[in-house]
């Protein structure tokens, strides 16, 4: 394989991985806190469209990202209110969030569908590091949202496993009653993590529309929210493992695109199914409960906390 082809595949894989990692890392935090949000795909779409709308109309990426964060926070608050305060079934509430935000993204995004924003996060070369053969152009000629992810991953691993708030977070999803007895506000903490997860997911959506594919059309995240959701289970709730999963699906997707140019006779739709089939296979092999292996899922995941039932 020529090195330019290899570089192209690998940098596409990195972009793809980052596009699903924002949502995956956010969802890891929310699920560690005991709340499962099935609406990731919808929240990504809302992030993608709101960022793109501001980019087209205001020509300002900073303002666009600020809007995306706000939109993510509002959607997170709605979901938190339903599942934490009103103790709604998380699967049903997630499907409702998915339907609402998918519809709303198409609704508000109609005016910019297919419109070129002429504005996107451009790749910035890191002096020195980008000279490393192969890895340089792959890892260090990317846009700022990719670089941000390089910090988010180690920070979140450190936070979850080695800090006191991280310990409280884990307890939130394993034994919220004990945490409540110890004087912590289980409801407020869960709210915070659900909102954080939703904000991260919305940023992931904006990454797709402003730093990856650079356009908006209805439903354009095409399942990336679901792949992010699958990555959480696949990675056993570990952000570092999620990185490898993201890169794996990214590479499969990128190789698909490249093989397609080599074999134009094979229809594009067949290659388009590859990341989904890869997700199915990976999910079965990594989360399948063969020989009664214990699941790594937080014990209180999807169970609403009810003080009366303490």
């Amino acid at each position, binding site marked *: 394989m020529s090195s330019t082809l290899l570089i192209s595949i690998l940098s596409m894989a990195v972009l793809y991985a980052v596009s699903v990692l924002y949502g995956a890392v956010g969802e890891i935090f929310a699920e560690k806190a005991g709340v499962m949000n099935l609406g990731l795909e919808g929240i990504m779409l809302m992030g993608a469209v709101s960022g793109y709308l501001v980019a087209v109309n205001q020509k300002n990426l900073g303002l666009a990202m600020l809007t995306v964060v706000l939109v993510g926070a509002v959607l997170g608050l709605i979901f938190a209110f339903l599942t934490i305060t009103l103790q709604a079934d998380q699967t049903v509430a997630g499907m409702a969030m998915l339907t609402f935000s998918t519809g*709303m993204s198409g609704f508000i995004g109609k005016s910019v569908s297919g419109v070129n924003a002429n504005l996107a996060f451009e790749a910035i070369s890191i002096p020195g590091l980008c000279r490393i053969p192969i890895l340089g152009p792959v890892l260090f000629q990317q846009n700022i949202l990719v670089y941000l992810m390089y910090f988010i991953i180690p920070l979140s691993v450190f936070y979850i496993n080695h800090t006191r708030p991280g310990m409280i977070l884990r307890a939130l999803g394993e034994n919220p009653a004990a945490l409540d007895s110890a004087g912590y506000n289980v409801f407020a903490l869960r709210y915070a993590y659900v909102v954080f997860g939703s904000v991260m997911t919305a940023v992931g959506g904006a990454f797709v529309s402003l730093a990856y594919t650079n356009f908006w059309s209805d439903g354009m995240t095409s399942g990336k929210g679901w792949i992010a959701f699958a990555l959480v289970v696949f990675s056993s709730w570990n952000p570092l493992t999620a990185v490898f999963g993201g890169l794996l699906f990214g590479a499969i997707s990128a190789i698909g695109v490249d093989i397609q140019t080599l074999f134009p006779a094979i229809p594009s739709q067949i290659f388009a199914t590859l990341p*989904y089939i890869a997700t199915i296979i990976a999910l079965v092999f990594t989360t399948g409960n063969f020989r009664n292996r214990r699941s790594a899922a937080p014990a209180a995941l999807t169970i609403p906390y009810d003080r009366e039932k303490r």
Partner: protein
Amino acid sequence: MRKFRYEKRTDVSMARKILNPVFFVLLAFLFCALLLGAMGFSPFAVYGKMISTIFSLRGLTRSIEAGLPLMFTGLAVALGYRMNLNNIGADGQYALGAIFCAGFGLYGPPMPAVLKIIVMFAAAMLGGALAACIAAVPRALWNVSETILTMMLNYVFLNVLNYLMYGPWKELNQMVAQTREIDSSLWLPEFGNTGISLALLIAVAIAFLLWFLLKKTTWGYQMEVIRRSPRAAEYAGMSVKKNIISTLCLSGAIAGLAGFAEVNGVLHRVQADLPNNAGYTGIVIAFLAYLNPLSTVLVAFLLGALQISAVAVQITGVPSQVATMIQGSIMLFVIAGEFFIRYRLVKVQKGEAA
């Protein structure tokens, strides 16, 4: 300072169970009116147009036509939830059902028309069941999330459908990505000139059959036990695995029948992106119908009406995605409203601890 607290209701009247969601559905429409207003559309004009579209004979028949595939996907989703199985793959099952059904209709061996229709019916069920089975087996045997599996399979089967529509099955010399029409001898009979075919009766019959199976048979009883406690079911000697596989496959088969209804009853062909998110709407329907097969048919009809009215408001410049937005809002508000079926707000009296 006046404060409120929640108090669990001891008994819930039937009237509250019905009126509460109705009230929250109205709230959802009010909320969407605000969103429409915020986007610069007149909610009165939009809702007015929607209402005038639905309340006519033509509107009524078109609502049934649009609601028809939703009846099948709604029933499919409701059946899954009866066992806590989250089948969000009805779109893909519908697609594979339509592929199998139309494939046999277009390329199958010659045979008497009635027989061929029956085989197409079976083929649609088989396609849907097969699509669901791919998710059902890992779910039953190794407890892999059926939610993610069925969702991923949607993307797979929709791509397969579109590959066929743009590729080998495409009608010759046509711009549109669709197959040619199936032979007119295979079309289901229509009621007068309404555009409503026999497929509606099939949907209603399946709803009654499911209702009967769930209420009156041991199979329905087993499902109820498994939903409440898989472990208790296991101790009682029921095979949870077998039940998961059979339920999900049956759910898929019903979703696949949406393909039969469209291919033999409405379009008389398959086209690209045929399911058009009917599977996701099915989730909303199943939830709003409280998983009852009979009310599923009714709710599917109502959401069918919502969909055709959303298409009609497009001429006023409102994107048709408004239908999905309203559906999602309805679901969000009704979920929020459920809390007030279980609890009531009471004022905290003076001197009472909050």
